[in-house]
Each structure stands twice: as C-alpha cells, then as structure tokens.
C-alpha cells in the first residue's frame, strides 16, 4: 500500500458539503469519502492505494479534478484497489455530485 496526502487550490464550493461515500473497494475500483474540510479554497485529498509507484499520476488526475470543479472546502479520503485513471475520474465526479448536489 502507498499512502500520501495532497492539497490543491480550488474554487470554494458554493453549497454546503453533504458527507457521502461513493464506490466500493474492489479490484480495479475505489471508494471516495467526501467530508467538509478547511480552508474553503483548498481541496485536501488523502490517498491510500494498493498500486505502488503512481503518485505522479494521482497528482495529475486530482489536480485536473480540483481545477475543473468547485471543490474548495472538500476533504476527500480514498481507498483504492488499483483503479485506472478513467475509473478514478468517474468516481470523483460522482462523489462530487452527490456531496454537493449538482454538477460543476
């Protein structure tokens, strides 16, 4: 397993965050837990992944997510069992939608 914490500047979420869990930890998949965090212009992410050596790719996927969503004030915790970036991106979008009640 590899664990790391990342932070990204992101526009503050205009709505209150409803804490939600999205996805299931199974082979090639992941769960994303969304909670309210601080400060309001930062998206914090804690990644716990079984695929060792892909931190740079996580950094790139999450940076794009933070740049394209109003994810400031969101704290994400991820348990990953080797999901591809495509699956990660989809799950992040779903988690964002259910926790903030709408698309970007």
């Amino acid at each position, binding site marked *: 397993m590899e664990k790391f914490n990342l932070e990204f500047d992101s526009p503050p979420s205009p709505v209150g965050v409803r804490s939600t869990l999205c996805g299931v930890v199974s082979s090639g998949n992941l769960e994303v837990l969304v909670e309210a965090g601080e400060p309001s212009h930062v998206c914090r992410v804690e990644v716990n992944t079984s*695929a060792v050596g892909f931190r740079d*790719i996580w950094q790139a996927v999450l940076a794009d997510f933070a740049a394209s969503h109003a994810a400031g004030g969101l704290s994400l915790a991820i348990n990953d069992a*080797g999901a*591809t*970036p*495509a699956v990660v*991106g*989809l799950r992040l979008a*779903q988690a964002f939608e259910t926790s903030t009640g709408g*698309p970007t």
Partner: protein
Amino acid sequence: MQGAEHPPAGWDRQARNRAARLARAAPLARGKQVDAGQAVALLEALIEPGDRLCIEGNNQKQADFLARALVQTDPARVRELHLVQSVLALPEHIDIIERGQVARLDFSFSGQQAGRLARLVEAGRIRIGAIHTYLELYARYFVDLTPQVALVAAQAADRQGNLYTGPNTEDTPVIVEATAFKGGIVVAQVNEIVDRLPRVDIPADWVDFTLVAPTPHYVEPLFTRDPALITETQVLTAMIAIKGLYAEYGITRLNHGIGFDTAAIELLLPTYAAELGLKGKICTHWALNPHPTLIPAIEAGFVQSVHSFGSEVGMERYVAARPDVFFIGADGTMRSNRALCQAAGHYACDLFIGSTLQIDLAGNSSTATKGRIAGFGGAPNMGADARGRRHASPAWLRAGREARGEGTGTMPRGQKLVAQIVETYREHMQPAFVEQLDAWALAESAGMELPPVMIYGEDLSHIITEEGIANLLLCRSPEEREQAIRGVAGYTPVGLARDKRMVENLRDRGIIRRPQDLGIDPREATRDLLAARNIKELVHASGGLYEPPKKYRNW
C-alpha cells in the same frame, strides 16, 4: 506446328504422385471411409517428407481428432513438414513442432499457443515464414503455399463423401478448393456419417477420405462476451463511438472486433443509439460473427444483414430463426465463410473498429508482447484502407475528403474508417499508449523481418478513449498527428507529455473532441444503458433461442 517439349518427368507428376499416395492408403479404406483406429496409419501412408500440410485450425471448429492422430505418427516417416494453416489453436499444433516433425510454419493467428510458439522460435526449433493476415494466407494457398495434404473437419459426411460443415463452415471451402484442384489429398474428420446430408458444403469429388471421430470436433466459443463484465468506462467509450463516429459519418456497413469495448457498442444500439434516433441510420449491414451481444440490436430491428466468418457456440438456433438477417442455406442453417467474409470486411465495409494492447505515437497498434507470437486474426484485413475499392458511400467519401482536403484538382477518392477503441490504461495500470511498441522487441528476439503490427498508423483514422475521440484524418502534419494521439492518451506518460497549447488548438478545430464537446456526461455512462447486463438477459432477448455454453451461465 511443333508441340511443347515434354520435360523428362512429364506434365502430370502431381497426378501420378497423388495416385501413388492413394494407392498406399487404399488398403486402409473402404471406398472413402476409414475407421478412426486407422487414422495414424492413414496419415503415415499419405504424408510424404517435406509436405505442405494444413491441419484445419479455425477460430472455432477444429480438426482435433486428426491433429491428435498426427502427433502419434512416426517422426521418421512424417517429417520436415511445412505447416500452412490460419490458426494454431490446439496444443497438438505445437506438439507436432516440439516432436521435431515440422521444419517451417506459415500461419495467421496462434492465440492460446502464442507463448509455446515463441519459446520454440527463440530456441531455433521452428522457422516461421510469415505471420499472415487471413486473406493473405488464403491467397498464397493459390500461389506458392498450396497444401499437399489437408486435414479438415466437418459436421457430417454421406456415404459418397459429400461434407456438411454446419454453421462453422469457416476455412473449409478455401482449404479444400486449393488442395483438391492442385493434386493434393483431402482427409475429413466428421462427427457422423448419414444417409442424407442437410446440404452439401463440400462436394464428394473434392474429398478423398472421411473418418468418423470418436468425439465430435471441438468448437471454441470465441466471440461470447459476458455483458456482466462490461465496465462503466467501456460504456462511456461506446457512447463516444456512437455519437462521435457512427452518427457523425452515418456508418451503415461495418465490422467489429471481439473485445468488450465493441460488445458495449452493440449493447448500446437499442438503448442509447435508438434514443439518438439512429435506428435505420447506422449499423444496418455487418461482416461479423454471430455475436450474442448483437441479439438485442437485431431484435430491436437495427440490423438488416450479417455475414459471418464462422458461427458461435450456442447461437445456432437463434441464427437459424432469423433468416432475413443471417446467411442461411436451403436446409435452414447458417453457412459461414471466413475467406469471403474477410473480403466483405475489407472491401464492402466503411468502418472497422476494434481494440488493441498498444498504440504508438504514429498510430501503429499491436497486440504483440514479448514472449508471445500471437498474430492478429481478422483485424489487419479489415483494419486497412481498401485501395482497390471503387464504389462510393457517404461515410467513405467524407473520410476521403477529410484526409485529402477539399482542394481543387485533387482526385476525389474515399477512405476507410479504421478506429481503435481503448481505455488509456488497461488493468494493472498498463498504458495503452507507448513510445515504442513491444512488437519491436518481439521481432528482435524472434528474428522476424517485420515487427508484428496489427494496424498501421497510416490506415488508422480515429482513436477513441475515455478522454474523447481523435480524428487523425484531419491532421495535416506528423506533429499534429502525434499531438492528437497524445491528446486522448490521458494520464499515461505519452498523454502527460502532450503540448497542451497544441492539443487545445486541435480541440478547437474539432480534431480532438472531449465527451463534453459531444454532449456526453460521463456520469451518465452507467451499466443501466446496456440492453442486456448479463448472459441471461441475452437469452431472454433471443426468446430463449440462444443457448449459451454452461461456463457462461449463472442459473
């Protein structure tokens, strides 16, 4: 007028050689019929050292009994063979090489035997002439690779030796035609001898011997894809394909690869494509095996015609019950034909779409990996521009215009649409986009003259990933092409190294289109869009006519 000078050996050496072989085998046969117990003796009597030999190995139907007999022949008598067959599917196809009875091999596809074959090549135990495309190998059957002995498989024979192949006709006609008309010997294993065949697929006077195999010939369910295993990402790429490619060009005539990516497209036709109003406008005519995942689209009235390379296990009753769609004989069962369907796929289809393991920066793609010599099956013939094509269609003309530009004075000409559909990372985080194909390393280690490329970059028109669709026809320079490929390569090293400004420019010009550019919300890409989400729903969609193999059932 002087007659031609007869060479000392005469003009009928092949006929005399054939007669000698038949004379050696005659004591083993009653007419054309030979007992299964005499199979080894028959092959030893018929085959001469150095013979070009075809053991019918199709994608599905296998002359497995004759292959098992061949590996029991005396290596001192049956030796220095030159195998000329499309598929090495059975362990026996490799066993005969391991036994030292084969000197040279020309083939197309080796699938499950790819690893063993690679080890034999690296050990210098076998020389490979070439890894052909199907049509190329069949063509050479009529030029310089004509079999001297062909061991084929059929469903049934009658007492005269006429053969009924059943729906899996596959390679049999082309093999037998080449062999029988050039002095060769045709031996057929059949499941049964009957008084009256449902229909004659191969006439008796092209067949020399028939043997009833102790067990029916093996048939591989190669084209069954369980919808339960289709991922959300594959649903997304299927949506992109339908909206960004099929609808865009109005593609009616096409061929699909056998992967889950294209199975997802088939299952989205009655749902997503129908919602877009595309019924009757796309996907009406196919060169395709009877894929179970096509059932819902057929039932929804999307599909007008399907010609097939071979059949598929469990689809026989369904296919027979849809004679308006499939090619059905007077007996009521399907006839397939790999050679003719490959020709149909090459010349009469506007689109080939399939998946691959690797794509390089020039758009060359390959499924070859080091340690496996697998070949490519049908993709290269269908995934190549048909330069001999002279009939126009809107999709073909538009592709040609996009590739050549609209300039005055250029000769109007169309181009085939050839698309690769991949997830940027395969499972276990293997990138689908690479700087250099593994095919180069394989060619090096196996001493091959050509790296085994499935689809050449110059033939590739579109790449579809979860990141969007890249139209390579519109690229005007190798640099643009490279950036278009990098632009849909996502977070792979190839994708991360893209020139962001240039990629945005390509997007502005519609060369790269993201899901949102096509009006597709990735969150809507759920498995609920699939017209069938498991094999059982396919059975229900078929009205109970589809009978899936038991390994695919969970009821």
